């Protein structure tokens, strides 16, 4: 009898965690299993590797989280990243700073164009960003002449591989951006407006929330995330290939954010939960590599986990945003 009571209270605690952020239970499960079955998984070096490997997708996921809480998503995020990476490399003859600025401006511009079509022309975001997804790929091919391009500033790759106190610089930067993004969501008017619009756009409009401006800014933030991700990947190899981010980076990012518990319809989610989704997928990918499992299983497991989380999501409604 006592045993069952105890079991029940543990069960209740677990249940609470699962409902508020199912991703943490999943992450914990994945982490434990990975540590048990994967030799070398728990080494410090490997853990920092996982963070490094999630830094690129992390930047894209941060931007996407803003947009998804707002109630939209962006299919062009992978190609936007590719385009910005190509600019980061291709513009280096004009100086590294110019190249990085060009990539950032391009990312913002892509977001702005997507945003304009969605907000002003009222065209479905799926169609708009699908068009950008295809069109940008064409632009990448035109710009690179369908070839891989190589950077001229040799120190750039050194930066991409560098560490601060044993911690990969890119991962550190991503975490800093993530904290800033979480702060923006929680503590600023823009963040509150984003939740309000995602929750109920009509009600938000009636309450005086600048729906169009907020949505437009979130599209630009998504583009900015893609640009920083593009700069990251370019610095990892000091080169860019025309196929970067093609074909399914966009879906991987949307899956990451959804896995973190952000609602596809908007109004609910957080950067910290997105980090949970990000780490879960990174750990699976990393430990499967360490276990010498063919890459296809990676995608299979990603699909399975996403289904599980979406199932929890649909079954157990969170009580508050």
């Amino acid at each position, binding site marked *: 009898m006592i045993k069952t009571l105890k079991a029940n209270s543990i069960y209740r605690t677990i249940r609470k965690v699962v409902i508020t952020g199912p991703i943490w239970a*999943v992450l914990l499960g994945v982490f434990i299993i990975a540590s048990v079955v994967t030799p070398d998984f728990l080494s410090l070096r490997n853990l920092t590797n996982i963070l490094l490997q999630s830094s690129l997708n992390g930047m894209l996921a941060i931007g996407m989280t803003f947009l998804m809480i707002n109630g939209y998503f962006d299919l062009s995020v992978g190609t936007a990243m590719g385009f910005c990476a190509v600019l980061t490399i291709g513009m280096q003859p004009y100086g590294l700073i110019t190249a990085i600025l060009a990539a950032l401006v391009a990312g913002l511009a892509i977001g702005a164009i997507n945003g304009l079509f969605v907000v002003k022309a009222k065209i479905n975001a799926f169609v708009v960003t699908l068009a950008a997804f295809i069109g940008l790929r064409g632009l990448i091919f035109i710009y690179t002449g369908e070839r891989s391009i190589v950077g001229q500033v040799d120190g750039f790759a050194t930066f991409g591989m560098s560490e601060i106190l044993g911690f990969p610089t890119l991962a550190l930067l991503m975490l800093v951006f993530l904290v800033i993004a979480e702060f923006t969501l929680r503590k600023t008017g823009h963040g509150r407006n984003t939740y309000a619009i995602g929750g109920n756009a009509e009600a938000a409009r009636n309450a005086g929330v600048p729906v169009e401006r907020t949505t437009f800014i979130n599209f630009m933030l998504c583009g900015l995330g893609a640009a920083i991700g593009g700069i990251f990947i370019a610095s990892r190899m000091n080169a860019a*290939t025309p196929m*970067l981010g093609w074909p399914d980076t966009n879906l991987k990012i949307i899956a990451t954010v959804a896995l973190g518990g952000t609602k596809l319809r908007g109004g609910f989610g957080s950067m910290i939960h997105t980090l949970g989704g990000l780490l879960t997928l990174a750990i699976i990918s990393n430990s499967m590599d*360490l276990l010498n499992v063919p890459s296809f299983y990676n995608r299979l497991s990603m699909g399975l*986990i996403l289904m599980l989380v979406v199932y929890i999501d649909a079954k157990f409604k969170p009580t508050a945003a």
Partner: protein
Amino acid sequence: MKKGMRNLFLLSVLLFVGMFAFAGGGGETKDDVITIGYAVFNVGIDSYETYHNENFIAECERQGVELIQLDAQGDIARQINQVENLMQKDPDVIVIWPVHGKAIVPVVKKAHDEGFKIVIANSPIDETGFDYITAYAGPDNTQEGRDAAEMMIEAFEKRGITGQKKVVELMGLPGYVTAIERSDGFQEVLAQHPDFTLLATEPTDWNREKATRAMEDLLVKYKDLQGVYVADDNLGIGALNALKEAGRAGEVIMTSACIFGEGYDAMKEGYIQGTCYQYSGLDAINTVKVAVKVAKGEEVDFLSTFESPKVTPDNMDDFKRPEY
């Protein structure tokens, strides 16, 4: 509701355990067994690589070598991650078939700096990475280009064509080392023969349709061209389509730097006069042998290439038709 939750937990546990179940025996490595960490380009991309892979695995088994193989599926970003992950497994040697010869350099440097021995397979790494690798194991692409030029010259002699001979070249992907080397080898030999004029070198990006288009254009532009050199048989088949359209197949002499099954058939039909027998299986076995030597600390040539003999209509029956 409660029952639902319990089922859900059961389901999730089953999913995770299931996911990792096939990991069973994968983990442990014995100290006395050589371990090769292999970051491969893209196993499924073409038949050459698929056969390469089968032979690579078989040769590892034959030699009693433990193989940790990760497939980048053509994604350079993924390959960089995988090389980092391989370093975690502490293999005796890391073999990389680079997705991109230049972009792989930073991570190769990182592995080298941490004391790993690296062998590059099949597609050479950019020269800036030479200091960080122990060996390159793969075909001698420059020699293949030279051989193709020699077979071209012999084919002209055999047909008794005299005077100034005009030829064109369809190269692979510009900037890709294999393509550059095959082109350089061909042009090097041709330059020693003043009776040959190279009218044009067109890039095809290894793409058969592009080879067809390029050949169509060349046939219009240079009505008197007599020969075409292609960087591999795949491009040769593309060029052949254009030659057939123009009714000049078989008349225009074609040589190639790398054999494919279809090219073998085209040679049998008299459309290709020479190619190089760069056999995928040999490539793979050579790579494993070099990697094992490197792991044991034995001396290897920096360029550990394997031979790809000349194939002409006269000796082609000595060679098996490649499966790919």
